[in-house]
């Protein structure tokens, strides 16, 4: 995977660890809902932050398929680097 992708993944893991405080080690395979207990409201504000960090717009309907950190990173990467 590209440098860009790794950067996205690193940032997501860092941000999620500090946001959730569950003591869970956040990795690519961490499940956002079952392991980090992110509810829909927290997820939406997290998404807004990620959008600003990467200067992209993430449609909330695209989140329906997102369960793990890796899937979220894939989505951000796809939006940022395929639409331009």
């Amino acid at each position: 995977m590209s440098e860009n992708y790794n950067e996205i993944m690193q940032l997501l893991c860092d941000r999620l660890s500090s946001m959730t405080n569950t003591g869970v080690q956040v990795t690519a395979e961490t499940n956002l809902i079952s392991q980090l207990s992110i509810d829909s409201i927290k997820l939406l504000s997290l998404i807004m932050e990620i959008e600003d960090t990467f200067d992209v717009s993430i449609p909330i309907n695209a989140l329906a398929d997102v369960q793990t950190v890796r899937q979220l990173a894939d989505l951000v990467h796809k939006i940022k680097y395929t639409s331009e």
Partner: protein
Amino acid sequence: MNLLEKLDAAAAARKAMLPNGVGAFGVPIEEVYSATEARIGDRRVILLGTNNYLGLTFAPECIRAAHDAIDKEGTGTTGSRMANGSYSGHRALEREFADFYQCSSAIVFTTGYQANLGTISGLVGPGDTVLIDGDSHASIYDGCILSGADIIRFKHNDPSDMEKRLRRLGSRIETTLIIAEGIYSMLGDQAPLTEIVRIKNQYGCILLLDEAHSLGVLGETGQGLVEKTGLLKEVDFITGTFSKSLCSIGGFCVSDHPQLDQLRYVSHPYIFTASPSPATIASTRAALELLRKGSHLRKQLWDNCTQLYAQLQETGYELGPDPGPVIAAILDTPQQALLMWNSLLEHNIYVNLILPPAAPEGKSLVRCSVNAAHTPEQIKYVGDTFAKLYPVVTS
């Protein structure tokens, strides 16, 4: 977990949040005495949690019109607008809405919820984008989901955040619909329409404004925020409901774009449902007439709003940012809000209780809706009761 077990789990979570709070939702109203009083259990209460902003639920003109329509046309149309359900009354009401908003076309829907579903899903589809306020009403969200368009939220009432998200869309801006509301139903605040219009014109996209809570309330003739701000001609589509200041049930969309009419042929929430009953249409037409010439009602309404807002603010309650008919006291916890709701009911005042996730930012609200028929004495009693309860609830 099977389907029924999932519902059991959701019910258990709800009960755990508020063990004694279940009765606050869907409380039975046994008898309605007037636009401002009813019986709940054995209490005669002041109704301070209805959307009856102009107090017209018992207007004799509306009641008479509904009676006449039932006598002449029966209790229901038993069919869709696209089949046997378009009576002359439905078409007359559409002309009256178009005239009221000085625009070329109007469509009447069976509810306000369906007006949003039908308008949004008719305007955008897969591959298009909707840019919506983060505090949008569920009917807006559901309309967006039904449409299959990409849904992007901007921070509530934050035009610069909206612009940032719009800019990021690049070439997709051309097929982007922006959606905002005249008055937001949770905190009663108004959209920054001047800024939103400036941005939508600069980028060249389409704007839909839901005037559900502002119809009859804002502007000299009650058109809503478009009239108050003088921006009627800048908003592409306006939706609204009959279920608040017009005191019946139904919804509408008006526009100067001739393409509005095409929605009748593509919009499932318009086609695949029965049209409003003759009585509903007749009372709505009578109410719209009263609304248009109801400046005295708006004055009474605003006198009541400003008085109650000022008194609650003075007492120390945290309120929504704009005074208006929706006055929400913001409380820290669901338990405080429930205590407040129960204590008000013990003092014979009925308000709405709003708990997370329905309220913005995980807050809990005790929401008052003021109307034009509340007497100064009722408003004073409500204000005094809130003041008396403040130390009890916030301690």
